[in-house]
């Protein structure tokens, strides 16, 4: 095939476009201004005949770049899906006729809008190329799992069942994690009323009998390098011997450990052996093995036990856990049943502030506990003391509003889970002289951005918990189980199954050189022009996914398979040497420079809207579908992530006479919804510095506004554009229209 570029521009007249717009004029624009080599109009472009027409041009007319001016790029992807050609879309339906009223007065500005989108589409396609094959593509079917607890074992069993070889690395001498020490488990099947065996033995047997699963006990991962499809990991035993394995993807299931109950002397822990934590009670139950449970101090059979919920949890007190560990209410019900099932005469009192029983069977299990006569008391425990006959619990009954002293044979503290998430790679450098806290890394990644998965809050792995729970910020490494968020056994199993599937997906994508979520299937990746790079390192720092290392000469070194194609590096680069074949500083820059810019006295301002393709752009499309109109002066360009917005676009837009600029990304911060986790946040920071640029041009600050927009903002998103139109009316037209 020759390298000659041949652009085919196709203008659809269906869906009312032909009635509302002068499509002949648009065709002329595509030809004269867009310089398309071939321009065609069609009454119904997405029907079989329209699609065949385009395919015929590709096959027989040598068209290798296709510009389709029709509906939104989010519509009709199945129809407009042509192999081996680059495709751009001009959004005339949702972006123009549906955002504008069908009136005579609106006709002129609506047509101008459409004309601009045709110009923009023609420019974009000119600078777009078909992504070329990624040389980094690598194939490896092996999965590495850090941790052999419930989550790790489940992931291994599930992945092996799907045909993928698995290696489990477990730090301790046995599989099963904490669950192995539990007497019984919370029921996992209907009617969720009776306790079940902990199930660990069965899982271990399954693993031992599965030739696809290799287990390394007493071992840790001492080094991990590479990328999806080509990870390499050193597995070291306690005795010091190390073996190296190659893996396609990794699951981090390093679980959680117990909160140290010694920090709760006010609740009697350490003051009398008859105050235990939940793990301590499991031990007593295992010892009793179905017989009456005896208290540790003197072996007296327990006739009366009090459970203190939220011990050292959900509390703002220093040294306590601020969060809810999610499983401990269910666990206390389970443990109270140990007593009730053995002897219904034993008094069991669970003192809670809010009883939380998540999961499908949670409520049924709670009811079952009530049926069995467990007393549930809403109250707050202030103190547990070692009395002469046994521990005494002082609490406030919140329903009866009374102070109570209850004596018991045994007190169980429901303490929380602390994730084993390794090193906090974002932690600020410790102050000089501060005592060194050494934390063992779980993965020992050789990545420039640190040894482990980044944390979000309270030490739990950052894993996009709002929308895509398994996606961490290290591509091809998935986290599952309580290292990600607090959870119980049943939830950990579900979690691990999901993570196993995601890991398989990731290694399969890596084989084809395709991106993982959220641009799954995308073949483009960052091209880096080393000659121009000033080694400022912004890209390596800002990449939300740690995809960029440094080579020996301290130049950024891209690991394509680790890249999620968000373009944050492209947005960060001050010398603009990073681009994608089909998305670059030029593909957007040329669009915004090629709109028709009426002069200052025309009273027709221009507002540039850069909208995140994940949420903001769909929100605008949906707004249009709902008939929510916005200013005809807006020109909307979708971006991969607000993080990919290079400030040069803003500067160029201001210099070419735009009167206002609106940037729309996803929610940032702790409860982020940004599909690329950090992109929106980084963009907001970048844009907060745009004031200098505005000042140097003597332009008003209000002309650039950055917003967090949710996909549901179908009224607010158009309103934000209209607000900018109003602002422009107030501050006046830009003087930069040449």
């Amino acid at each position, binding site marked *: 095939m020759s390298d000659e570029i041949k652009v085919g521009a196709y203008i659809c007249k269906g869906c009312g476009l032909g009635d509302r717009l002068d499509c002949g004029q648009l065709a002329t624009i595509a030809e004269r201004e867009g310089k398309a080599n071939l321009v065609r109009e069609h009454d119904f472009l997405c029907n079989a005949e329209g699609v065949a027409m385009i395919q015929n041009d590709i096959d027989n007319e040598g068209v290798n770049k296709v510009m389709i001016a029709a509906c939104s790029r989010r519509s009709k992807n199945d129809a407009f899906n042509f192999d081996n050609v680059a495709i751009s879309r001009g959004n005339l339906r949702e972006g123009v006729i549906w955002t504008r009223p069908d009136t005579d007065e609106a006709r002129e500005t609506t047509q101008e809008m459409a004309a601009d989108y045709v110009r923009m589409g023609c420019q974009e396609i000119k600078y777009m190329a078909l992504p070329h094959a990624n040389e980094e593509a690598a194939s490896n079917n092996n999965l590495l799992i850090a941790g052999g607890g419930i989550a790790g074992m489940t992931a291994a069993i599930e992945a092996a069942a799907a045909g993928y070889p698995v290696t489990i690395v477990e730090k301790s001498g046995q599989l099963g994690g904490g669950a192995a020490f539990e007497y019984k488990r919370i029921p996992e099947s209907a009617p969720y009323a009776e306790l079940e065996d902990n199930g660990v033995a069965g899982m271990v047997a399954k693993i031992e009998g599965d030739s696809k699963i290799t287990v390394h006990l007493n071992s840790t991962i001492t080094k991990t390098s590479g990328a999806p499809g080509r990870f390499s990991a050193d597995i070291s035993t306690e005795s010091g011997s190390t073996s190296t394995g190659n893996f396609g993807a990794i699951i981090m299931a390093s679980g959680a450990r117990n909160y140290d109950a010694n920090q709760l002397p006010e609740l009697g822990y350490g003051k009398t052996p008859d105050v235990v934590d939940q793990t301590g009670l499991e031990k007593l139950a295992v010892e009793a093995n179905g017989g009456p449970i005896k208290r540790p101090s003197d072996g007296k059979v327990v006739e009366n036990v009090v459970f203190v919920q939220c011990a050292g949890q959900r509390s703002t007190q220093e040294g306590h856990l601020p969060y809810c560990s999610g499983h401990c209410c269910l666990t206390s019900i389970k443990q109270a049943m140990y007593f009730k099932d053995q002897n219904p005469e034993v008094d069991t009192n669970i003192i809670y502030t809010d009883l939380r029983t998540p999961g499908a069977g949670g409520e049924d299990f709670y009811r079952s506990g009530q049926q069995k006569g467990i007393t*549930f008391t809403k109250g707050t425990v202030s103190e547990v003391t070692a009395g002469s006959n046994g521990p005494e619990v002082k609490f406030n009954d919140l329903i*009866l509003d009374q102070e109570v002293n209850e004596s018991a044979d045994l007190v169980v503290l429901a303490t929380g889970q602390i994730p084993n998430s390794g090193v906090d790679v974002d932690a600020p450098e410790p102050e000089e002289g501060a005592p060194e806290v050494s934390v063992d890394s779980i993965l020992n990644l050789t990545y420039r951005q640190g040894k482990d998965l980044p944390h979000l809050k309270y030490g739990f792995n950052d894993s996009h918990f709002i929308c895509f729970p398994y996606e961490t910020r290290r591509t091809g490494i998935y986290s599952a189980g309580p290292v990600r968020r607090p959870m119980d056994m049943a939830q950990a199993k579900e979690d691990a199954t999901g993570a196993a599937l995601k890991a398989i997906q990731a290694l399969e994508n890596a084989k084809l050189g395709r991106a993982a979520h959220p641009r799954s299937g995308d073949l483009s990746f960052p091209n880096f022009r080393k000659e121009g790079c000033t080694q400022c390192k912004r890209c390596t720092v800002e990449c939300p996914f740690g995809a960029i290392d440094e080579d020996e000469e301290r130049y950024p070194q891209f690991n394509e398979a680790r890249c999620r194609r968000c373009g944050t590096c492209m947005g960060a680069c001050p010398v603009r040497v990073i681009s994608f074949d089909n998305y670059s500083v030029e593909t957007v820059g040329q669009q915004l420079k090629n709109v028709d810019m009426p002069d200052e006295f025309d009273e027709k301002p221009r507002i540039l809207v850069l909208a995140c393709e994940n949420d903001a752009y769909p929100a605008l499309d949906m707004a249009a579908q709902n008939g929510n109109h916005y200013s005809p002066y807006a020109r909307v360009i979708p971006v991969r992530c607000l993080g990919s917005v290079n400030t040069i676009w803003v500067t160029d837009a201001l210099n070419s006479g735009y009167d206002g600029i609106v940037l729309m990304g996803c929610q940032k911060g702790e409860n982020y919804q940004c599909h690329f986790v950090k992109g929106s946040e980084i963009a907001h920071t970048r844009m907060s510095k745009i004031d200098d640029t505005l000042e140097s041009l003597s332009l008003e600050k209000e002309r650039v506004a950055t917003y967090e927009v949710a996909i549901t903002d179908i009224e607010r998103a158009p309103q934000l554009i209209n607000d900018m139109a109003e602002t422009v009316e107030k501050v006046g037209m830009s003087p930069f229209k040449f």
Partner: protein
Amino acid sequence: MTDANQQMVEQYRNNFLREVEDNVEEGGWVKMCMQCGVCSGSCPLGPHWDHPPQELFMMIRAGKRDEVLQSSSMWMCTSCYNCIVRCPRELPITHIMHGLAHYAKRLGIAPKNQPTHKFAQLFWNNLTKTGRVNELKLGLALYFMNGISEGIKTSLKMKDVGLGMMMTKRLSPMELIGGHKCKDTSGLQAILKKAEELEAARIPVAGK
């Protein structure tokens, strides 16, 4: 052991809950309450109760035997069924209220001067005497429930209503002497006596 100690040992144990389960109509449901408070919020008379249903249920679980059984609260229930309809745990709350009242009454510790309690007794006495409710006597008994002077005052106040009812033959002054009755009064008495025996055998009253 002192009283306080006694109390400390007995609180939040299952013993009173068991007693309620064994003796109170629908008492087995008390342990299923999840303390959401919807019943208390739904009861039209709730604000006037000493202890709305949710609280009564917690008191039972906390072992507050005397306070519960001597309470006037469950006597306040008007059987509107709002709570039953709304309880997410489907407790037959109305029935439990009457069950508790009934049990307290049988134990002889129901509050003596609680008006509903008093009226219920008057009604029972009136009905069981002849097998027919004597409305005139029942009405007057109700007026004089709290003494002669209040009775006279109430009677005078209600005089016109009474006369009106007589004019329309809704009330017969003849009822004052004897009044109508069922065919076999002594047979009825025998039935009631037997029923009482049967019930006593079925539900042993704790402590008796």
